[in-house]
C-alpha cells in the first residue's frame, strides 16, 4: 500500500541508467526549471548544482564566482546508475527540519525508469514558525505558484 505522506512521480527516459544518473546530477544546472517564481531565494536567481558523493551539497548557486548560495540539502545516498537520496529544504525551514527525495534509476527496455519519491513532510513539525503557518509554506507557495503557471501554460497551448 502506498504510504499516506509520500509524493511519487515517475518518468521513462531514453538513455541508460548510468547516463540518466549523470544527467540528473552533474547536469542539473542545465535542466532544472528556475524561473523567478520557483527559486529558493526570493530575489536572487541561481543555478542548481550537486556536489558529487555522500555528504555533498545540493546548492542553488547565487554567485558563480564564490559558489555561494542556498543549500537545499546534503546527499545521503550516491549510487551512480542506481539510486540517489538527498535532503530537500525550503528557504523557511527551521534548523533540523528537512524532507527527503529519493530517485531510483532502473533499466527498462532501451531506457531508464526513473522513480522519484518526496517524503518526510510529517517531520516538519508545527514549531514556533509553523504554528503561524510559516514552515513549509514558502515551499508550498513556490509549488502552488508553479502549479498556477503550469495551468496557464497548458491553457495557452490549448487556446492556440
Amino acid at each position, binding site marked *: 500500500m502506498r504510504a499516506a505522506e*509520500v*509524493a511519487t*512521480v515517475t518518468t521513462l527516459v531514453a538513455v541508460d541508467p548510468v547516463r540518466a544518473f549523470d*544527467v*540528473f546530477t552533474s547536469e542539473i544546472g542545465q535542466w532544472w526549471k528556475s524561473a523567478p517564481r520557483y527559486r529558493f531565494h526570493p530575489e536572487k536567481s541561481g543555478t542548481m548544482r550537486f556536489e558529487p558523493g555522500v555528504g555533498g551539497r545540493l546548492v542553488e548557486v547565487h554567485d558563480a564566482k564564490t559558489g555561494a548560495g542556498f543549500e537545499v540539502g546534503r546527499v545521503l545516498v550516491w549510487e551512480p546508475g542506481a539510486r540517489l537520496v538527498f535532503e530537500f529544504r525550503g528557504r523557511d525551514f527551521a534548523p533540523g527540519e528537512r524532507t527527503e527525495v529519493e530517485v531510483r534509476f532502473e533499466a527498462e527496455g532501451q531506457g531508464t525508469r526513473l522513480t522519484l519519491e518526496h517524503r518526510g513532510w*510529517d517531520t516538519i513539525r508545527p514549531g514556533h514558525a509553523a504554528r503561524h503557518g510559516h*514552515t513549509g509554506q514558502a515551499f508550498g507557495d513556490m509549488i502552488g505558484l508553479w502549479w498556477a503557471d*503550469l495551468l496557464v501554460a497548458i491553457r495557452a497551448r490549448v487556446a492556440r
Partner: protein
Amino acid sequence: MSAGALDRTLAALADPTRRRAVDLLRQRPRRPGELAEALRVSPPVISRHLRVLRNHGLVAEEHGDPRDSRLRVYRLRREPFINLRAWLDQVEAFWAGQLSAFKAHAERTRRGKRP
C-alpha cells in the same frame, strides 16, 4: 486548504506508531485493543496515540455499544487525508514538471551525441 489544517495532519503523522495505526485504520475501523495488539504496545500507549489522532481530527470515535466502553471503535476521517492528498498532488505536479525538463534535456543531449 488551510496551512494550519495540513500542519496538524502532518504533526499527527510524525510518530511512527501513529502512522502504523493510521495504516491499519485505512483497512477498516478498529477497537483500541486490536490496535494495541497489532502494534505491540500497551493499552495506555495506544490510548495516548488515539487521543492525539482524535485531537488532530484524523480519527473519530464511535460506540459500538454505549454501555460498554470496550466496544469503542475508531475510524479514519476522510477530510484530513483529502487535504494531505491535495498537498501531495501539488508536490507531484512540481516534480512532474522538473522530470519532464530532465527527460527533454537528457534525450536532446543524447541525440546531439549520436546524430
